[in-house]
């Protein structure tokens, strides 16, 4: 019998010319990032724009840390959406559950790589974290809860959620059959197994949601509890991190869902109702974050001490003003667009996607503005104003990380169904093969 894998649903196992080109381009960017990183390892962090605060008038945390926060923020969407679908029984959102879970896993991996890019001696940093991390430090939480716990929990969720589809695909002969059989691990989709999965997923969702809030808050505490750093020390940092994480994650999920809708030609599964829900969720998160921005702005400009005002001035009218106002505009405009759609109840998918893209640009800008200006303009010691400009090495590594993330996503899409597979689809495909194969 001829073995044909192209009958797998959603284009799994089938690579056309366009996919090869895409993978080639992404690989090229990954190689560029690796080359830049090799320069950084060989020469040291002198090849980056990062310098000591104060004495060298620079910033020790730059683009890498901004993207650590961004990537971890993006990971918010996956498990949140997956958990909400499970807990609130949002059946119509099921098609985006797996892509959201994959987004979470990949974003957390990229976040971990960004941390490694930031430290001068990565192997030593990893070993020392495992040996010496102190529970009192928010870095402990970032390391244990965000990177380890959250990533592991997401992998477990993704694995268990995929067993049913793996079992279905394992019925179809092909090169990937063994892989699906291993993933399914004996799953046969009996009523008892289904019930057990429902129960396990429910409790996983219950366990993951507080972990998610704790993890994102912990990352906010890394900045928020530094009393000696004007611009960072704020009770709003932790909840602000959670909210902006939601904004960027849901925004990116919208963009990915729209791309897959087009590429896989699945307008029925990824229906306008899915985008409507995501748009409303994004709108609520965006307006909540905008409220935080306004509160922060009023607090720091009304009667703050001198150093706090210095940071605010750099943000509002100084060298970071263009980025600050652009980021704010990229939050306000999507909110207005989404709000107008909500009021009129006339939703436009391209506009929702545009909003998702804009809020992500805003999130990157805001992460940069949280990390850098407080170091260059927020020192309490009598040093002059500092400056920080990323070099090509930093840009290349970040670009390489984005390419790696996209590459991992593309490979997953080609290895495993990115959406839940209807049983009829597989049965028809398998039957077709048997007939064709004789």
């Amino acid at each position, binding site marked *: 019998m001829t073995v044909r894998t192209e009958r797998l649903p959603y284009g799994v196992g089938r690579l056309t010319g366009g996919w090869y080109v895409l993978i080639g381009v992404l690989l090229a960017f990954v190689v560029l990032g690796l080359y830049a990183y090799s320069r950084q390892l060989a020469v040291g962090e002198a090849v980056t724009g990062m310098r000591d605060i104060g004495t060298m008038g620079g910033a020790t945390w730059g683009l890498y840390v901004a993207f650590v926060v961004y990537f971890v923020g993006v990971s918010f969407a996956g498990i949140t959406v997956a958990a909400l679908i499970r807990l609130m029984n949002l059946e119509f959102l099921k098609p985006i559950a797996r892509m959201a879970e994959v987004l979470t896993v990949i974003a957390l991996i990229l976040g971990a790589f960004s941390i490694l890019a930031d430290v001068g001696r990565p192997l030593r940093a990893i070993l020392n974290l495992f040996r*010496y991390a102190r529970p009192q430090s928010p870095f402990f939480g970032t390391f244990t809860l965000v990177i380890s716990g959250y990533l592991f929990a997401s992998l*477990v969720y993704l*694995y268990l959620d995929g067993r049913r589809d793996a079992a279905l695909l394992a019925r179809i002969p092909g090169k990937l059959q063994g892989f699906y059989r291993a993933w399914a691990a004996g799953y046969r989709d009996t009523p008892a197994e289904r019930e057990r999965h429902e129960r396990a997923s429910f409790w996983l969702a219950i*366990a993951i949601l507080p972990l998610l809030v704790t993890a994102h808050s912990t990352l906010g505490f890394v900045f928020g509890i530094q009393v000696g750093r004007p611009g960072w020390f704020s009770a709003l940092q932790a909840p602000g991190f959670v909210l902006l994480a939601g904004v960027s994650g849901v925004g990116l999920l919208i963009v990915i869902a729209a791309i897959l809708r087009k590429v896989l030609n699945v307008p029925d599964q990824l229906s306008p109702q899915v985008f409507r829900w995501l748009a409303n969720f994004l709108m609520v998160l965006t307006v909540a974050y905008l409220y935080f921005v306004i509160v922060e702005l009023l607090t720091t400009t009304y009667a703050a001490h001198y150093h706090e005002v210095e940071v605010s001035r750099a943000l509002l009218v100084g060298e970071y003003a263009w980025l600050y106002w652009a980021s704010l505009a990229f939050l306000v405009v999507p909110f207005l667009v989404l709000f107008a759609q909500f009021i009129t109840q006339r939703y436009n998918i391209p506009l929702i996607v545009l909003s998702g893209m804009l809020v992500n640009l805003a999130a990157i800008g805001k992460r940069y503005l949280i990390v850098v200006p407080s170091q260059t303009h927020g020192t309490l010691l009598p040093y002059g104003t500092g400056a920080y400009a990323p070099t090509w090495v930093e840009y290349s590594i970040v670009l390489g990380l984005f390419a790696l993330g996209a590459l991992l996503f593309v490979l997953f899409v080609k290895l495993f169904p990115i959406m839940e597979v209807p049983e009829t689809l597989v049965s028809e495909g398998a039957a077709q093969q048997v007939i064709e194969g004789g």
Partner: protein
Amino acid sequence: MRTTLTLLLIVVGFGLQVVSYFFLAAPWGIPSSPAYSNPRVPFAPTIFILGVVLVFLAAVVYELLPERGQ
């Protein structure tokens, strides 16, 4: 058996987290000596992570372990 093992993993996992966080890692309190900087047991953070991993691994055990008699 399956439920027992699952619950055991959850309890042990949380136990490891609590013990490593409060009793094995660097002591809580005002850091008045170098003893506050180092963990009381080497790799205490690793034990905490192991605890987190065990708690979530319980879900895998619960789903993968077959029913008695199967």
